[in-house]
């Protein structure tokens, strides 16, 4: 038998191991750098005024982003109210009624495709169906755009989570004479509850940091949002506008808003993980 030399192979192995350690450190370094920088610069911008005052013109001391915070909250809540119910129902269809038929297969394909569509194109789409015909930008359009982004995510996780529930549970529900809808809502949903909550939280986290779909829909505005029927103030577009402005105090405020958004998104993600872990134990 021919003996393979070991020396070269060991050297390559050690080199790859060293490289992978270095790469990991490099990756962690960069990502840590981003987080620290956002934290450091953002904390300097946060104050009571930041949360309670309306935006001030550049050069004027004080002022905050209360309107943008409230607007983002409003748009996200409306988007959730539209996107989650439709998404969950679509997921129910896929998991309970559309497992092996053509309709199910095409919807599944559409869900996967829609998930991969860049969010800015969703904004463009909503612009053409809501902003253009109505003639003005609006918070409603922004909420619809975010809802469309949530929809496939929620549908997909719902399908996955309901798919984990064993059929025996469904059969025992049906065997005691419960109609299908009660079995789905009362038994299957209960069994998959924590997974569903996790999915919804993650989708809310995802859209609350979205900027691109709001650029052509909600736009932004410096005023307190009293309704969603006009351009609506929101944090992410404000970050974009302020960061691109030449004014130091606006850029400072953009850092504060970035920190706020990042903290909220990370908190929602951690919450979703905790909700999922609790059930598993």
């Amino acid at each position, binding site marked *: 038998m021919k003996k393979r030399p070991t020396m070269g*192979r*060991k050297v*390559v*192995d050690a080199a*790859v191991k060293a490289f*992978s350690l270095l*790469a*990991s450190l490099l*990756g*962690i370094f960069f*990502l840590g*750098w*981003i987080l620290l*920088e*956002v934290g450091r*610069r953002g904390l300097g911008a946060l104050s009571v005024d930041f949360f309670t005052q309306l935006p001030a013109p550049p050069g004027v001391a004080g002022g905050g982003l209360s309107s943008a915070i409230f607007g983002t909250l409003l748009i996200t809540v409306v988007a959730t109210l539209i996107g989650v*119910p*439709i*998404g969950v*129902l*679509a997921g*129910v*269809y896929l998991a309970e*009624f559309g497992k092996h038929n053509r309709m*199910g297969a095409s*919807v599944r394909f559409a*869900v996967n*495709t*829609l998930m991969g*569509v*860049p969010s*800015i194109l*969703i904004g*463009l*789409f909503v*612009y*053409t*169906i809501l902003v253009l015909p109505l003639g003005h930008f609006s918070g409603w359009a922004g909420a619809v755009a975010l809802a469309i982004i949530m929809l*496939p995510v929620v*549908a997909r996780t719902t399908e996955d989570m309901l798919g984990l529930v064993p059929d025996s549970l469904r059969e025992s529900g049906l065997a005691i004479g419960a*109609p299908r*809808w009660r079995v789905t809502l009362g038994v299957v949903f209960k069994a998959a509850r924590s997974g569903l909550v996790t999915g919804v939280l*993650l989708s809310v*986290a995802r859209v*609350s*940091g979205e*900027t*691109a779909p709001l*650029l052509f829909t909600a736009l932004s505005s410096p005023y307190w949002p009293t309704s969603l029927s006009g351009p609506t103030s929101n944090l*992410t577009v404000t*970050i*974009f506008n302020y*960061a691109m402005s030449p004014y130091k105090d606006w*850029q400072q405020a*953009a850092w504060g808003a*970035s920190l706020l*958004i*990042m903290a909220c*998104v990370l908190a929602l*993600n951690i919450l979703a993980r905790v909700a999922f872990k609790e059930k598993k134990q």
Partner: protein
Amino acid sequence: MSLLPHKSRGERADQSFRGLTLIAAASVLLLMVGLLVELALNARQAMGRFGLRFLASDAWNPVTQEFGALSSVYGTVVSTLIAMLLAVPLALVIALFLVELAHPTVARIVGSAIELLAAVPSIIFGMWGLFVFAPFMATHVQPFLGEHLGFLPLFQGAPMGIGILTSGIILALMILPFMTAVMRDVFKMVPSVVKEAAHGMGSTTWEVTRKVTVRYGAIGLVGALFLGLGRAVGETMAVTFVIGNSHRINPSLFSAGNSIASTLANEFTEASEPLYLSSLVYLGLVLLLMTLAIQLGAQAWLRHIKKTLGGSA
């Protein structure tokens, strides 16, 4: 009592429940079709005016009403290419580190950190890129590259910080956590029996990874690759902040450029002329077709791998 079969209330409720879920499911289908149709309809004017020449022209002049997609497509492709070249090997070795080399506690902590980082909104990367990383590029990285690799046209020109190279690097950082997390899960799914068998034959860790783990998880890895690619191609904010918004194509990676998404983000609300607006929608349609092609390509490739390797889905 009626002799005809009579639907009970329960049955009717069941039918309406099913109908309701069907409507919701159909709405996703409708959205997908609507997206294509709406963009195509709104791009009609520009399509009629420029046709397929749109893709080959680098003109972009709102005053003379001449528009072409080439510079935006070029920026999109090049920045995505840079991002993939940097992020794919890094994600692969970091995933390898997490699964094969790191202490389990370290792997768990770093793993969760990476999952969380995958959730950081892209605008955060944009902010960091514009205010922190671009100045760093201008003062350190670009002068260094210019000095040592300046004989290549790729690394010539003034170190401005912002530009195509910087956007590519930031895109790489953005897709890195996400691809690492997916690749780690793929590596984890490889049964340890298979790996132990290879180790038992005297293979080194790298040989096990290259010849067993990667082959076993090929489908998942390709999936991760395409997911990352899809994200990078359509990423808007992280790129818009740092790419420089210029419609000129320059061979140097230091120069300012444009991607389809950044052109849309920068110009859409300012476009007042119908033809200008229509050209931007046309540009969006090109991006949509690019992402659809990536997804279909991914599926075709996955089918091919399944056939040749016979792995499990």
